[in-house]
């Protein structure tokens, strides 16, 4: 319990520091943000109005305090482009990204589980070698290039899937999947490679543990051991690593959504960057970081709860 308490407690300074960092983003813009946003011919009145809107007139502490007060209640400010609420903009885009992330994990699990188990069981044999080699390549193939290759193959060459035209899954599940499958594959492949390597080494480790050796000695056959002992125990660390993967995955989704022109969170961020819509960029960055912190917290807490062997000091962070 002490572990859980400490884990939750250490999140508080992280959140505080995160808020300071995200808040400071707008001040990273070289020069006067209002001037940069409005351009050199902006009238003094327009500049003053925008400064007031961005709260740039007050002292920096008051600005931070105001901003934080709004953020805490879910108000991320308004888009500089059309005045729409940033939280609403992000909220609108989340289902696409969520679906993509879930699909990516499903694909990763579907590939990684059989391969990881087989590789561990046939350790050192050609199957293991092939799986490991594929995983090494898989980890080195950037998802966005894989996405372009999949587009080339399945959309341009054999017209199997459309290259665009996203519809929400609740409107037309078939069409939705036909649009989403390629992006899911392009991010899923890499996640599968990472997961497979982790799964393999965790299973190998578990196979060396005493209780598994005992089971073996008792005459249980290999597959029963894998299923009953190794796999169950291997799941926890794999789940933990899965949580850690989220940050990498979110980053990868930004560019995958751009390639496949999906109206998700990532393409919103990219669009906002090119629109110089700094408040939306700021809001999106905050939401992405919060998602990562939250998921890792949940995973870590679960880990501590599920696995009593966890030692307080063992976690690096």
């Amino acid at each position: 319990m002490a572990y859980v308490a400490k884990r939750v407690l250490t999140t508080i300074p992280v959140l505080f520091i995160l808020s300071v960092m995200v808040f400071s983003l707008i001040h990273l813009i070289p020069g006067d943000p209002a001037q940069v946003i409005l351009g050199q011919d902006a009238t003094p009145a327009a500049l003053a109005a925008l400064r007031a809107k961005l709260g740039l007139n007050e002292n920096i502490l008051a600005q931070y305090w105001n901003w934080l007060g709004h953020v805490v209640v879910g108000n991320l400010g308004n888009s500089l482009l059309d005045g729409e609420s940033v939280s609403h903009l992000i909220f609108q885009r989340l289902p696409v990204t969520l679906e993509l992330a879930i699909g990516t994990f499903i694909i990763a699990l579907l590939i990684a589980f059989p391969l990881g188990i087989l590789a561990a069981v046939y350790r050192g044999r050609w199957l293991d070698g092939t799986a490991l080699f594929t995983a090494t390549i898989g980890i080195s193939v950037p998802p966005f290039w894989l996405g372009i290759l999949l587009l080339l193959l399945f959309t341009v060459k054999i017209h199997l899937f459309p290259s665009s035209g996203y519809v929400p899954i609740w409107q037309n599940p078939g069409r939705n999947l036909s649009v989403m499958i390629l992006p899911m594959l392009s991010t899923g492949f890499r996640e599968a490679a990472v997961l497979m390597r982790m799964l393999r080494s965790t299973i190998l480790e578990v196979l060396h543990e005493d209780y598994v050796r005992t089971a073996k000695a008792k005459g249980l056959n290999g597959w029963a051991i894998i299923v009953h002992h190794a796999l169950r125990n291997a799941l926890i660390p794999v789940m933990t690593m899965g949580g850690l993967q989220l940050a990498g995955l979110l980053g990868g989704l930004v560019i995958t959504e751009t390639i496949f022109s999906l109206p998700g969170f990532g393409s919103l961020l990219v669009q906002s960057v090119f629109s110089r819509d700094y408040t939306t960029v700021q809001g999106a960055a905050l939401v992405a970081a919060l998602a990562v912190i939250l998921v890792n917290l949940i995973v870590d807490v679960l880990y501590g709860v599920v696995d009593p062997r966890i030692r307080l000091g063992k976690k690096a962070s």
Partner: protein
Amino acid sequence: MAMLEPSTEQPQTVLRAAPSAHRRRWHTLRKNRALVGGGSIVFVILFAAVFANELAPYSPNAQNYSAILQGITWQHWLGTDNLGRDTLARVLMGARTSMEVTLGAALVGLVIGVPVGIISGFYRGFLDDWLIMRIVDAIQSFPFLILALVLAAMLGPGIRNAMIAIGIGYIPVFVRTVRGQMIAESEKEYVLAARMTGARDWRIMFLHIFPNITTPLIVQVTLAAAGGIVAEASLSYLGLGAQPPTASWGSMLQVAQGYLNSAPLLAIVPGVCLVIAVLGFNLLGDGIQKLWDPKRTD
């Protein structure tokens, strides 16, 4: 990107090893295929980056409107792009852009990350636990590419800012690696001995301990470089990294996406370079790791 994650598990595993004898290292070197393969690839990439101008058959920015979107020909071994620029020349130049950004970023990350990690790991305590490591946590909570994207957006597009943005993304990994090693080493006898002789803290930190922790750091830098290559390509693909006409594998892929039908070669060549470079650095990292810690063969 996710390339950087091994850091979270590495420190513990790395500690297990004690540096082994030279003889044994040379023996394992020959069997260490990852090191040999990765090292060769990295050498070739660095060679191409340094001598891009000398190796390139054409200027990478020379537009030839009578040779647009060509396939493999005698004049253009890897074809040409939508402005008639030689793809071979551009991927060579792309190697330079990629290495410039990645190594520059590594430098940024090291210059900040190493001292912070050393101090944090040496003194520990409140500062380490409640401030430095929490800042590191906060930076790490940004998905690497999103952090780079946001910073590039605020600082403005371009190679230099991409370098800074990626470098900041590296900091958490470097701090964690150095700190973890620092903690482990400071218990060792040679450190205690140095303390007894009354050496100053900074001497102990930088002259006694630091040289002993460079190998795991090199492993991390190598693995981070693999992530940096992808990050640079991603930023350039989005138009926030290398600015036209500068060649980058990422911006080449962006152009290629418009011609998948008529010139698929344009999408394949820079992508293959990208994969080979990432693979090379990943293998090299694994190889150095194995060399350092032969017990950990799996």
